[in-house]
């Protein structure tokens, strides 16, 4: 997953609005009860923005790690043995459960499971027997990326 322009806009919107709601009432000399109610709502907005920001940072770090494995990894293949739909969706994208036979040259064959959030058109193409490229970390072959 990666943040897009809408995500950046949402973080900015919730963050700035939340801060304004936390700081505005005291600066405008609103009464204590009003300040508390508005500031509580503002704090929730700030927390939402912070949560989205942390998730975006985590996604960016994960992407950088995957890029490293792609550039430095051993290219192999992953054959889909079993496809399961968790019936969970993230932004209209299904979370797929894949059972894979991973074959990495010099490492061998192993069966692994992987959960991936995929666009619908990709999820529809995940069928038993489909062979996808995979790249394994040469230092730790259990870490791999699946190219879909």
């Amino acid at each position, binding site marked *: 997953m990666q943040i*897009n322009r809408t995500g950046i806009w949402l973080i900015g919107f919730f963050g700035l609005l939340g801060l304004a709601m936390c700081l505005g009432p005291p600066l405008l000399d609103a009464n204590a009860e009003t300040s508390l109610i508005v500031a509580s709502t503002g704090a929730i907005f700030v927390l939402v923005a912070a949560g989205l920001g942390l998730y975006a940072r985590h996604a960016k770090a994960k992407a950088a790690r995957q890029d490293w494995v792609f550039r430095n990894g051993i290219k192999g293949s992953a054959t889909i043995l079993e496809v399961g739909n968790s019936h969970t969706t993230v932004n209209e994208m299904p979370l797929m459960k894949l059972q894979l036979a991973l074959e990495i040259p010099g490492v061998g064959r192993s069966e692994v499971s992987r959960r991936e959030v995929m666009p619908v058109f990709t999820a529809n193409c995940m069928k038993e027997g489909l062979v996808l490229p995979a790249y394994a970390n040469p230092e730790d072959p259990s870490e791999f990326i699946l190219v879909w």
Partner: protein
Amino acid sequence: MADLDATYAAFAAARGLEPLPALGLGSLTPLLVESKHGQVAPAARGRLAGEVDGIVGQLAYTRNKTFRFNVALVEVHASTALVPRLFCIRSGRSTRDDEFYGFEARHSKLWTESTALNQRYTISTSPFQDPNWMRQLFSPALVDYLASKPPADFSFELAYGILLGSVEDDDPGADGLTALCEATAHVAARIARECEE
């Protein structure tokens, strides 16, 4: 709709295609996902252009407002192993007006040296796509073709061996359908040739 049906009937008759009232193409590309089961109506099947066979039809769906695309679908099976997904979408095209998600599946924007191509299209692919192969695919000839020849709104999506060319138009007329089919067939032939090499 009567005019559109007549357009497709005339187009199919002129080019020897099999006319079809409706056809479900499946949720095979991002644009087809928008319409339920990728249904196109009306449609026609057969030789689109050159040596390329496929299906042409109108895809309509509603997400707050109704979108109408004329699409041409061609299979390029050999591409799955080399380029699982590649999207070349006309800059500024909108396929939804009710999408407010801040996170999406990872993709990489493809950079090309052609200013004309970059102005006209947004090209994206898998983040783990072989960049050398992409440079070979986007040869100067293909770049020049995409930048100057296809219909103004032409875009294409390649996903797991399915190539979908499209233009947004209520009724493009026989000339518009011909241009769509020829552009899609040209791109399909180019991808297939690069896959063979």
